[in-house]
């Protein structure tokens, strides 16, 4: 998601100035996505340049509120109507790390899997505790954000379990030019059956 659309969605509720936008943004994402005020103003400048928001006269306190334009509303509606493509998300460092661990000499892949699973499990416990603590009806948007993170963490743990069972059966092909002793194969099979 872009901060752009987040800010547009907030301005759809009514005019706001920078600090209000930052506070509202963090509130609606349960502080899982902290913004600094610089990011807010940079984004507002771009939105203004693109005609999606317009600045209003400054308040007495010197804060300048912004309001959404019709073009901004159309852009926001399009964003809500368009599914998010997985291809747009950043590459998954963990899967790349495991793939490299398998082919890098001297790396204990099972230890990598186990360390990651413990860490992700811990995250899952922390998220669940936060969820448990937010059980008022008005916490629903925040709980759904937490649920999304819970399901993602769960998926990662399932994938790590899957990696672990695949590793039990994994026997790397012998380096080219070397023939395998038949006994070695038997032992590997023996181990796999264990």
């Amino acid at each position, binding site marked *: 998601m872009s901060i752009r659309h987040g800010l547009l969605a907030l301005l759809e509720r009514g005019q706001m100035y920078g600090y209000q936008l930052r506070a509202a943004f*963090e509130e609606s994402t*349960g*502080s*899982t996505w*902290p*913004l*600094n005020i610089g990011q807010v103003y940079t984004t507002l400048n771009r939105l203004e340049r693109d005609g999606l928001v317009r600045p209003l006269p400054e308040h007495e306190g010197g804060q300048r509120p912004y309001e959404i334009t019709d073009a901004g509303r159309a852009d926001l509606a399009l964003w809500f109507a368009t599914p998010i493509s997985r291809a747009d998300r950043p590459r998954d460092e963990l899967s790349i790390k495991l793939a490299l661990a398998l082919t890098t000499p001297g790396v204990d892949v099972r230890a990598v899997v*186990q360390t990651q*699973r*413990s860490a*992700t*499990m*811990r995250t*899952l*416990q*922390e*998220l*669940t*505790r*936060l969820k*448990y*603590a937010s059980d008022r009806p008005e916490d629903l948007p925040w709980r759904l954000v937490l649920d999304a993170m*819970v*399901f993602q*963490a*769960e998926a990662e*743990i*399932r994938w790590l*379990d899957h990696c672990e*069972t695949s590793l039990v059966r994994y026997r790397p092909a012998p380096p080219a030019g070397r023939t395998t002793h038949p006994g070695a194969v038997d032992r590997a099979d023996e181990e796999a059956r264990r």
Partner: protein
Amino acid sequence: MSGPDAPVLDLRDVHRTHGSGAAAVHALRGVSLTVRPGELVAVMGPSGSGKSTLLTLAGGLDSPTAGEVVVEGQPLGTLDHRELARLRRRRIGYVFQDLNLLGSLTAAENVALPLELDGSGVRPARRAALAALEEVGLTGLGERFPDQMSGGQQQRVAIARALVGERRLVLADEPTGALDSQTGEAVLHLLRRRVDAGAAGVLVTHEARHAGWADRVVFLRDGIMVDSTAPLPGVEQLLSGSGR
């Protein structure tokens, strides 16, 4: 060892072998686990890793081949059959995937049953049963029979039965069974609340999302504990304190 923080459950280097010689199956191979009041421990691992064996040993439904199981300071190996049965009825609550509710008894009668078996009078047992049903959100449904209730309600009755009276150790084996995710979550919520009120809990599950409700998660692999995790202290501040 006694006192409010003394372990409710203590598994000490527990082994369980089924069969002998070449056909021996080593279900548990030296597992140690301590669970204190207010603590919920999740046990995870693939099928056949020893999860359910651990739970049956903890509940005194089976005895270890070696090692010791101690519940509320009492080594189970030193108890005779009658003492063990009494400890199980009074101190240990079980929630299983198949609910084992008796279809010919009402919800309240199902919940009161362990107390009545333990010699409690019908009236106090019924009072305790109604209180337990209230605790799981089934106020007013005590007179229904299991087949007049939804799957989620039946599971709550099973939980009420596990929590009724003064049970300090709650053992749950995949307690959310085939429930949908919302109802399953409500079941875990109940378990968590009881543990927060001072019970000790062990939850066997293969779902990471459910294990997330625990204070500590242990992983079993081929009867050995390979890994364990606990939340970092002060995690409530993890997200609310970020971005400063």
